[in-house]
């Protein structure tokens, strides 16, 4: 039996959630709804007594705002009731907390079998049932993870309160199967597809051949295994060999050519351009200074660099694109709490300091028929923000950086980047904090949440295969509180020296975490039947591969195991001993009496056949920018500037970003939004590392996806350059900047419907080269990275591929955060100085998009020359010669000038003719061009002689001055181009993302169709 309790707003009080829902229904769906009332519904099983239920309803409601009732609250008519609850098996964290409260409220003993199921009820007025159904499916619920029930008021009144709960129908545990691989090629390929193994024919053959050979091995026979793999073995291999885990494309041998040219062979992009770059810089640093600040790179969950005597810094950025496309909220929250586990599980465990995020979406106001199964970008955007906001805030981690990029091709796949910075103690209980040492004999302990069918095979399952009876498989939902409690416990255990190694359970679950950790001691024996499950009926391979969230795997020495388990119990965290590490070279998995997998680690990790990839570069057609006449009068110029600043990619999103906490932990010094009105984005955020020291770090990033339409080499270099320039401008040390590379690419492997795969592969090669050259020149090691190579969607026969996108996230050391630099001037005066040359480079710029042109002159970098420039500026900033610094980025000089003026609440007067620029550079390139290598500085007039001397030989000029007029004036020599008030520009810039100029959407649309 089940008890149903409803909690709703008391008459006379405000139902904020209802008001917000009504507003979204009006704005997003254009339905003229009259009102929405909301309620929270709790189903408690087994049922409570009448008196108990009353007590719960009263306590949950509280004294003022809400009312509670058993069954239903009766507070008047409505037109349509929409109930939204989880599907069977989906994590219900609120239900878990509610159970704890009910038990304590009623003085009941803790009971595992008691369950609370939560759902939301929306009572709609002013709509009919049909509209209610649309509102439910398009706005209030996501049917991948949620159940919807819609009733008219008459139906509602005629029915009893709904007492159904989303039980998982528990089935018998499926047996372990042996898979016959003695098949022809076609059948092998079919098997890979049917089981969602995502293995190529070569790889399937390699697996078959391995088991053929191993069949004669006495060992398999003694274990009761044959010359065919079990499903556990095959799934484990497919997971371990997946693109996600093995980065096959980055490790492939690539045959690269430019149309008509000779072919070059590259043995692994990763080894050549990523690791190779870092190794070169590490070597140079050791030669020059005798030591290196790189502590641990490329072999742990995240990159580690030295910072202070007490702490190293750890940094990792990941993507969670496909899950966020299916379930934006769940996918994104899993993205952020998932990436938290990477730095946390680095070395012996690190303490999380700050999150970063960045999203690439199709414009939220796009008007285009969307096929079923694809969510509207506005909905994706809302859900993703909401997910990362909840994930970060509830974990108590501030965000340091956040950005959004809007481009129509991200309709195919939104990109959701999430990253985390952590600090690692230099020593932990007398051991080096960055080293793990699981030993043979150590116990394998899984800590955290329970295992369900969540995330098995990731997002490759289509939603159509999900039924009411089958637990959700495609999507995991992160539960930050369970994870926070686990982290708190693990830090305590770490400082007591209770474990010898730790790693996270992410993709591939136990198969991946145990499989990887077993490499060090040289083997592992795992007993799957001990694993704690959310519900019965999981096949052994599912237990082994489940990506259920909030789990870490640790190696606990046998003499510490009792203390470890006891501490976990005390902290209300689940920890289970699942076996032990060994040194026999085997990953040996049992389920009860039966061996279900016995795989040599050597084959598991090194048996993957090498991939070969063809890459052919076709250069874009050269096309010039068609200049237009400058604005006929400066008021028209003002109008033009306002429209430009209101573009999605330039407008202010401060109000939205403030939903993310940016200063919990009390270490944030330069916040993400700064200036007199605290509404101008900072070039970089600056944090202390701990409360005891003023040494800190700065975070910034660079990303220019559309540049890859012209040349991915330029895209990569521009991204590195902007990230570095921003950190320099923030006062970071020029010789202590490190970066992470996150590649998100459309599929570069040939196949049906992919005519330009060879070009996409070539773009990848060129991006890697550009990245490597820039990092070598700037002395920026790549300390960690990730790639996601299948960002395409086929929609109604049309293939939409994202633009090849590289995000460069940079972290730089700041010696004293109290001397950090920003674009804030502190007063309404000062010379505006532009350092760096402006060139005719409008290719793929925001301005070119704005005026619907496709010139091919993409901004090019000269990192070798600019490295010296950045060292000079860093020194000038360090010596106090610079009052404010800002790196122009997307949109060029105009938005950069606007941000400096707005931050100071100052007017300005600038002459474009004074820009250090190539002679033939037109007014548009000067005002909107995105030439790299430039810094806008504000300098006191009294310092002019000094900085001119310090920057001698650099292209640098005074281009104007700040003033207290409140007017924003841009001239080109004699003629005034823009004469605007700062207030008018600010209003347009703030309106931007909420109400975009309508013609921008249409232009963006054209661009989407262009390729």
């Amino acid at each position, binding site marked *: 039996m089940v008890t149903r309790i409803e909690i709703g707003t008391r008459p006379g009080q405000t139902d904020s959630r209802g008001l917000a829902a009504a507003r979204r229904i009006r704005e997003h769906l254009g339905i003229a709804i009259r009102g929405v009332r909301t309620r929270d519904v709790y189903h408690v099983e087994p049922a409570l007594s009448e008196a108990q239920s009353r007590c719960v309803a009263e306590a949950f409601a509280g004294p003022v705002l809400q009312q509670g009732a058993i069954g239903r609250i009766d507070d008047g008519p409505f037109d349509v009731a929409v109930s939204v609850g989880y599907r069977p098996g989906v994590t219900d964290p609120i239900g878990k907390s509610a159970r704890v409260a009910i038990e304590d409220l009623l003085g009941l003993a803790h009971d595992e079998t008691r369950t609370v199921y939560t759902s939301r009820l929306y009572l709609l007025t002013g709509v009919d049932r049909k509209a209610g159904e649309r509102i439910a499916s398009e706005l209030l619920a996501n049917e991948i993870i949620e159940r919807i029930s819609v009733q008219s008021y008459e139906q509602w009144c005629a029915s009893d309160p709904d007492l159904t709960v989303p039980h998982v129908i528990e089935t018998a545990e499926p047996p372990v199967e042996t898979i016959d691989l003695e098949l022809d090629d076609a059948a092998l390929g079919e098997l890979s597809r049917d089981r969602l193994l995502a293995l190529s024919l070569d790889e399937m053959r390699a697996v078959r051949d391995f088991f053929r050979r191993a069949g004669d091995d006495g060992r398999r026979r003694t274990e009761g295994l044959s010359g065919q793999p079990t499903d556990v073995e095959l799934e484990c291999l497919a997971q371990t060999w997946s693109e996600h885990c093995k980065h096959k494309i980055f490790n492939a041998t690539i045959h690269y050519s430019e149309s008509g040219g000779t072919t070059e062979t590259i043995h692994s992009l990763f080894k050549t351009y990523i690791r190779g770059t870092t190794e070169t810089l590490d070597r140079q640093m050791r030669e020059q200074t005798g030591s290196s600040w790189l502590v641990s790179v490329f072999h742990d969950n995240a990159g580690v660099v030295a910072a202070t005597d007490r702490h190293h810094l750890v940094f990792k950025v990941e993507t969670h694109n496909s899950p966020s496309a299916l379930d934006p909220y769940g996918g994104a929250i899993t993205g952020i709490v998932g990436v938290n586990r990477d730095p946390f599980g680095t070395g012996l465990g690190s303490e999380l300091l700050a999150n970063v995020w960045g999203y690439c979406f199709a414009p939220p106001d796009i008007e285009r028929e969307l096929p079923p199964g694809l969510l509207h970008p506005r909905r994706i955007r809302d859900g993703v923000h909401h997910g990362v*906001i909840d994930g970060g805030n509830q974990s108590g981690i501030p965000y340091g950086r956040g950005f959004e990029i809007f481009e129509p091709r991200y309709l195919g796949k939104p990109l959701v980047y999430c990253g985390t910075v952590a600090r690692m103690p230099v020593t932990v209980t007398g051991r080096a904090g960055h080293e793990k040492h699981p030993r043979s004999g150590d116990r394998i302990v899984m800590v955290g949440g329970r295992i369900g069918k969540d995330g098995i095979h990731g997002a490759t399952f289509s939603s159509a295969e999900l039924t009411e009876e089958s637990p959700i498989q495609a999507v995991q939902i992160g539960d930050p509180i369970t994870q926070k409690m686990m982290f708190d416990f693990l830090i305590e255990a770490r400082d007591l020296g209770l474990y010898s190694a730790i790693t996270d359970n992410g993709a591939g679950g136990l198969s991946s975490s145990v499989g990887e950790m077993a490499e060090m001691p040289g083997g592992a024996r795992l007993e799957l039947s001990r694993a704690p499950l959310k519900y019965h009926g999981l096949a052994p391979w599912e237990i082994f591969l489940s990506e259920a969230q909030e789990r870490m795997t640790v190696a606990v020495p046998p003499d510490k195991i009792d203390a470890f388990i006891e501490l976990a119990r005390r902290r209300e965290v689940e920890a289970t001993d699942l076996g032990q590490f060994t040194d026999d070279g085997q990953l040996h998995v049992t389920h009860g009496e039966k061996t279900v997998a016995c795989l040599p680690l050597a084959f598991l990790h090194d048996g993957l056949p090498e991939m070969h990839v063809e890459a052919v570069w076709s250069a874009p057609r050269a096309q010039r920018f068609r200049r237009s006449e400058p604005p006929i009068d400066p008021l028209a110029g003002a109008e033009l500037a306002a429209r430009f600043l209101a573009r999605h990619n330039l407008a202010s999103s401060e109000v939205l970003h403030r*939903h993310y906490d940016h200063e919990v932990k009390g270490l944030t010094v330069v916040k993400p939004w700064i200036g007199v009105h605290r509404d101008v984005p900072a070039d970089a955020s600056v944090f202390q590392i701990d409360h005891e020291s003023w040494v800190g770090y700065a975070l910034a990033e660079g990303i220019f996806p559309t540049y890859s339409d012209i040349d991915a080499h330029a895209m990569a270099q521009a991204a590195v350059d902007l990230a570095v320039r921003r950190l320099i401008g923030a006062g970071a040390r020029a010789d202590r900047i490190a970066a992470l590379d996150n590649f998100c690419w459309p599929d570069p492997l040939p196949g049906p419907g992919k005519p330009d795969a060879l070009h996409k592969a070539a773009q990848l090669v060129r991006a890697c080269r550009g990245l490597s050259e820039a990092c070598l020149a700037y002395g920026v090691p790549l300390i960690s990275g990730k790639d996601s190579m299948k960002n395409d969607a086929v929609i109604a026969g049309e293939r939409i591929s994202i633009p090849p996108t590289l995000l460069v996230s940079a972290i730089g050391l700041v010696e004293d955060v109290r001397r950090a630099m920003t674009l804030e001037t502190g007063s309404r005066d000062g010379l505006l100085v532009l350092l760096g040359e402006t060139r005719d480079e409008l290719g793929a710029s925001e301005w070119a998009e704005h005026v619907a042109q496709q010139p091919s002159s993409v901004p090019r970098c000269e990192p070798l020359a600019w490295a010296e420039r950045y060292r000079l500026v860093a020194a000038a900033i360090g010596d106090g010669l610079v009052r404010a610094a800002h790196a122009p980025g997307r949109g060029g000089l105009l938005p950069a000038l606007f941000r400096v003026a707005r931050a100071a609440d100052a007017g300005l007067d600038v002459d474009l003719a004074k820009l250090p620029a190539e002679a033939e550079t037109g007014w548009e390139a000067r005002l909107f061009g995105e030439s790299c290598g430039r810094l806008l500085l504000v300098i006191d007039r009294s310092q002019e002689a000094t900085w001119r001397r310090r920057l001698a030989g650099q292209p640098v000029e005074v281009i104007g001055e700040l003033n207290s007029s409140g007017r924003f004036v841009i001239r080109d020599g004699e003629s005034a181009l823009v004469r605007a008030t700062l207030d008018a520009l600010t209003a347009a810039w703030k309106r931007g993302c909420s109400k975009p100029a309508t013609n921008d959407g249409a232009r963006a649309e054209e661009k989407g169709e262009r390729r």
Partner: protein
Amino acid sequence: MSATAQRRVRVLIPVGLGLNCEAETAHAFRRLGVEPELVHLTDLLTHRHPSRISDYQLLMLIGGFAYGDHVGGGFVLATRLRAHLAADLQAFLERGGLALGICNGFQTMVRLGLLPGPVDGPHDLVPRADLGPNDQLGYRDAWVRLQADSNSPCIWTRGIESIDLPARHGEGKFLVGPDAALDELEERGQLALRYVDDAGRPTEIWPHNPNGSPRGVAGVCDRSGRVFGLMPHPDAFLHPWQHPSWRQHPDPPSSRPLGLAIFEAGLRAAAELV
């Protein structure tokens, strides 16, 4: 003498279960020369911790998301505290213990009935108010200007006229049933801290008031003034470089106090109990 007594104050900071401001809150007390005791709630709730709450002079309920704020901010933790520690908590208050709740800690105090507390008689742990969702729905992190009621019995705001602090919450609208109740609280000086606009007047208007709290209520104390809760975070303003405008002024602004002043006022009063 009083400085020595201040250093001997025993400060209890319960941690865990989703709370997350322990590092900065502990740092505030350390800056004032006191080493606080961070005790895991799982030990407090099960009486494994060797001391009782009433052995301390100062109880600090920190910010965070205890139990994810599920059901309502602070609700599950308040329910657990009442179920397992009611008598100990009442004994602590009976002895004149000082208690401060910040953000989630304030929500917990309200759900627990500590704030605004009974009009007379000892603390009965009966809730009389709610901290409802912000009018502009959702969490918001932005600095606000606050003004203290100079006629308040609140011990924690003594010596403070006006202060800048970050508000960082999604549920901070202070609601107490009929208007009369708010009048009474105001008369008794229990509405100790208000959000104010640029002119320094208490405001209900966003963004100066982030949640729409009536009369700009940001912090509330009990009848005695020894128990105080506030939504904004004094723990986030312990040095001048945490103020969002520090780069605007070459010399950090000194006209308004740091958040540290609130901890200091409480410690001073707690020292009298030592």
